[in-house]
């Protein structure tokens, strides 16, 4: 379908949705930083306007609207012409809405969570920056604009993960996130260059429509896989998945934003954005599927042993992202996007609920929280259960439907192994989710109600305003997590412009996966829920395996080793040595040689008058002799 130019109203609405967060960032960062209330007002109101615009764009435009495209030239340097503008098609409208909603909710939530923090204004400016870059990424009409904001998303997550930069671990995590995603972006950028050099135009619509026709199959696969490297970095897929669990060093609302709608979602979004392009290369899809599967299984195992509440969710994010990629890799555009949507809702909810606990008890450890009396906090306790159910894929929560559609796509594949892996993953998901929930619900010893440890900003947290600022977003998100699943068909129709492709429902699949989920929950009940349970997983009986899982399959250690021994130890040291000794040493050697030569020659300058005379006379005499003999 050919794109149409936007009407004036849509143009300004979209630009408002895109630019208000940026304006808010600039205003807060450079002008109103010292006035907290004003800054908060600016930020939240900009986010609200942006949210409204996004919802209007999602619902207000006609369903069968052809894509709306608007471009202006941003940079022109010979071959590379980067346009700036937006592309509104169902996918970007849906995603725009998700991003705007989550970032608005997170901003509201942070009013309570971050109250009393020194850098709260700065925090809000960064949130705005994050929203701006993610929104611009989502609506980008061309790959180069997408790449630009892709990098900016990386930057804003760097700033936010390392927000409490006086903590070493936080700044370390920010750095790790940035560098590891940068590693993946290397491939992304190369892929873009390959496409640019062969196509000359990186408009997403054209790319999706024409790439297969214009490029050779090998080239499509190569560039698709290269671009997928960026996804691997951004969406924390195997082998670059270890930065995400560390990224929870940032404030919890940031984690919510990061894990649901912005940073990691960007990767999956990119694959969906270029889905027709990927679909042109079965090999590339196979790579996506394989990476997704490996990641999903690995991170599920890691989540099974983590004690840190945020870490459990972090691993679950990684594994759910793996699920999405599996869905996309299996060839179902809808399944991936649908799961992305529902996941955004329930994962944001999970983190925000955990944030309340962490905020209240000042601890990340789920046993500590349980012992502190976590279950007395009614709103977060109920909402976290809903979100957990969604994550585990329990009917009727949203996760069930989206996961079901992914399983459907996997079942359509010729090899049954993928489906088996998917089902195993679902069971594991159910296990670790319910493990955490049971620990929270059925603590072994409960401390006295008033013997609580407080996190930061405790005074503000207990105010009514703070409580409701944090509570309302939870309730809203819980609503979404519950009902979003029933909109599956609507989203399907919407995404395919009202002409959904034939979609196979496997009747036997839902019961099978439900049974597996039940098994997972049951196992967790046996170990953690029932009265006599020791609250120790079956894995604790296999210390080696547990250690393997808890140490993230030693991937971190591997990277640390690589960094320490290969990058620092070998390259950096060798090059430095080379620089000091060989290059610089060579130069110094030349200098020393010159000085030494001068020193040697200085013996000729003995200061002895007669010696100089002697030389002079001798040379004159010899020259004289030479001329006489010659002529």
């Amino acid at each position: 379908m050919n794109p149409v130019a936007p009407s004036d109203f849509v143009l300004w609405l979209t630009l408002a949705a895109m630019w208000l967060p940026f304006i808010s960032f600039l205003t807060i960062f450079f002008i109103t930083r010292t006035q907290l209330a004003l800054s908060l007002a600016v930020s939240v109101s900009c986010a609200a306007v942006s949210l409204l615009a996004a919802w209007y764009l999602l619902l207000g435009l006609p369903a069968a609207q052809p894509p709306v495209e608007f471009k202006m030239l941003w940079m022109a340097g010979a071959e590379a012409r980067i346009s700036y503008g937006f592309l509104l098609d169902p996918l970007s409208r849906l995603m725009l809405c998700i991003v705007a909603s989550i970032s608005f909710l997170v901003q509201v939530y942070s009013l309570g969570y971050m109250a009393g923090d020194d850098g709260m204004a700065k925090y809000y400016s960064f949130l705005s920056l994050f929203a701006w870059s993610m929104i611009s990424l989502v609506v980008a009409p061309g790959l180069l604009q997408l790449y630009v904001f892709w990098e900016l998303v990386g930057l804003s997550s760097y700033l936010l993960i390392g927000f409490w930069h006086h903590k070493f671990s936080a700044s370390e995590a920010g750095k790790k996130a940035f560098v590891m995603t940068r590693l993946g972006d290397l491939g992304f950028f190369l892929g873009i260059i390959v496409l640019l050099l062969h196509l000359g135009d990186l408009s997403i619509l054209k790319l999706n429509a024409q790439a297969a026709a214009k490029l050779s199959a090998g080239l499509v696969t190569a560039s698709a896989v290269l671009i997928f490297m960026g996804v691997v970095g951004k969406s924390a897929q195997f082998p670059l998945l270890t930065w995400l669990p560390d990224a929870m060093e940032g404030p919890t609302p940031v984690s919510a934003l990061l894990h649901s709608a912005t940073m990691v979602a960007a990767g999956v979004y990119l694959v969906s954005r270029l889905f027709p392009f990927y679909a042109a290369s079965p090999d590339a899809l196979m790579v996506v599927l394989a990476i997704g599967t490996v990641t999903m299984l690995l991170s599920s195992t890691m989540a099974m042993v983590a004690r840190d509440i945020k870490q459990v969710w972090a691993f679950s994010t990684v594994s759910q992202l793996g699920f999405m990629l599996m869905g996309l890799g299996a060839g179902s555009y809808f399944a991936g996007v649908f799961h992305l949507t529902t996941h955004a809702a329930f994962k944001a909810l999970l983190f925000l609920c955990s944030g309340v606990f962490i905020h209240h008890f000042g601890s990340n450890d789920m046993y500590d929280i349980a012992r502190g009396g976590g279950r007395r906090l009614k709103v977060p306790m109920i909402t976290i259960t809903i979100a957990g159910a969604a994550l585990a894929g329990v009917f009727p929560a949203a996760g069930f439907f989206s996961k079901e559609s992914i399983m459907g796509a996997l079942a359509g594949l010729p090899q049954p192994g993928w489906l088996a892996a998917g089902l195993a993953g679902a069971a594991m998901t159910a296990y670790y989710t319910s493990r955490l929930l049971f620990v929270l619900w059925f603590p072994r010893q409960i401390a006295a109600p008033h013997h609580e440890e407080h996190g930061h900003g405790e005074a503000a947290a207990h105010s009514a305003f703070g409580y409701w600022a944090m509570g309302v977003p939870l309730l809203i998100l819980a609503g979404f997590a519950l009902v979003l699943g029933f909109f599956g068909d609507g989203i399907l129709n919407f995404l395919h412009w009202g002409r959904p492709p034939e979609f196979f429902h496997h009747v036997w699949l839902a019961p099978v996966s439900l049974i597996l989920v039940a098994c997972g929950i049951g196992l967790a009940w046996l170990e953690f829920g029932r009265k006599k349970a020791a609250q120790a997983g079956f894995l604790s009986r296999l210390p080696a395996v547990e250690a393997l899982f808890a140490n993230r399959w030693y991937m971190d250690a591997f990277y640390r080793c690589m960094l320490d021994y290969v990058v620092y130890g070998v390259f950096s040291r060798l090059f430095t040595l080379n620089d000091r000794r060989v290059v610089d040493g060579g130069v110094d050697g030349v200098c020393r040689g010159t000085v030494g030569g001068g020193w040697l020659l200085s013996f000729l300058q003995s200061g002895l008058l007669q010696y100089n005379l002697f030389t002079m006379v001798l040379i004159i005499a010899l020259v004289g002799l030479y001329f006489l003999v010659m002529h």
Partner: protein
Amino acid sequence: MTAAFPYLSLIMLAPALGLLIILFLPHDSKRAVRWVSLISAAVSLLATLYVWQAYDRMAGGLQFVERTLWVKSLGIYYYLGVDGINLPLVLLTSIVLFTGVWTMWDLKHRVKEFFALMLLMVVGVYGVFLALDLFFLFVFYDVSLFPMYPLIAIWGSTRKEYGALKLTLYLLAGSALILPGILYIYFKSGLFTFDLVMLAKAGLAPDVQYLGFFLFLFGFGVLAGLWPFHTWSPVGHVAAPTAVSMIHAGVLMKLGAYGVLRVGMYLCPQGLIDWAPLFAILATVGIVYGAFVGLAQTDLKYVIGYSSVSHMGLVSLGLATMTLGGVSGAVFQMFAHGIMTALLFSSVGHVYDSTHTKMIPELGGMAKVQPRASFFFILAALAGIGVPCLASFWAELLVFINGFKVYPVLGTLALSGLVVSALFMLRVVQKTFYGPKNEKYAGCVDIRSSMIWPRAILAGTILLFGLLPRLMLDTITVGVAPLVELFK
């Protein structure tokens, strides 16, 4: 087109006039010296801004030309002019000079001599960028190099005599290649003129271009920090005082790349085609190598020095691609890197002045102690690692695209240098500005309100051209397009 008013001479001679006035001021009138320097820098800046906005981008080519015969028997002309290539660099010089003078406002030690030498150096820099006559270009080139020695040796720190000597010797060694190159071209062309434009129009024999470009490549390459002739740069930067580092890393290193571009590539296009693979290899090695070595440094200024090596490698790679995008990217990178490095050095300069250390392990948590200085440093560091919407991103983008297009393997290697440079820059940011603060430096003051402005100008420039790259690129492309035609 002949300008009615000699704006270019004004740009160049305003610092010279300032220099003269300073020389006649009494030794202890420090305020007057500062003000005279600042005003002459401001006059240059304003004139540059006027030329920048008045330059006709549709017409392109050389504008604001001033051409007078100087020595007839040797064919030497006083010949100034701007096109899309040197206009950004003149703008860069003006900005860095103005902010540099302002940054050194608090200098106490031998103020008069410092500003006099600095202005002298800048006169040379303007001369090189503006002159279109090889003789003048070379003379100004050396004028801009000589003041470095006293500037570093007197006002520097950390092995200053060593650094100054090394830098001077290196650069003079480069000059020693350039002069034969110029004379070689002069005699072999048969025109007996130093007029760059005439020489370029006449065209030289391929073998003359071959040798000529070789001489220019390595002669100017030394100043551009071309690997492996780069070691003067970190040592010199470490030793130099803040403003000198700013001008030196920000502007002077560009003289080298500009020389390769204006003299080498303009006069000897065939020579570049012959030497391009070697040039590209050296550039790529420089990019990767500089990043890795920077990773192992513990001195803040060394880190910046090596990042300069890495970034100037990008400039060289861009030039070696011989494509419109690549060369434009290289020119843009010169500008962006100049501003960025100036900002880095001016922030580090403040940290060093207040804490008296620039060793990374000793610092830490400076973001809490000196939020302003930290902000500027981090902004510049982010620009350095190619964060979008900051000026150097676009330049790097263009260079990488064209680098990959012309040299796929080298381009990929250079790209991987980007990851390493991200690693080492963030490492510095983390170790120095983040983390728990060192109580020893807890009482150190931040940048004063009035001293924010020079840094803010630099930061604003980075942001402005980062958000609106066309402002810069449209001009550059106009200048580069005719040059690139030579390679076809």
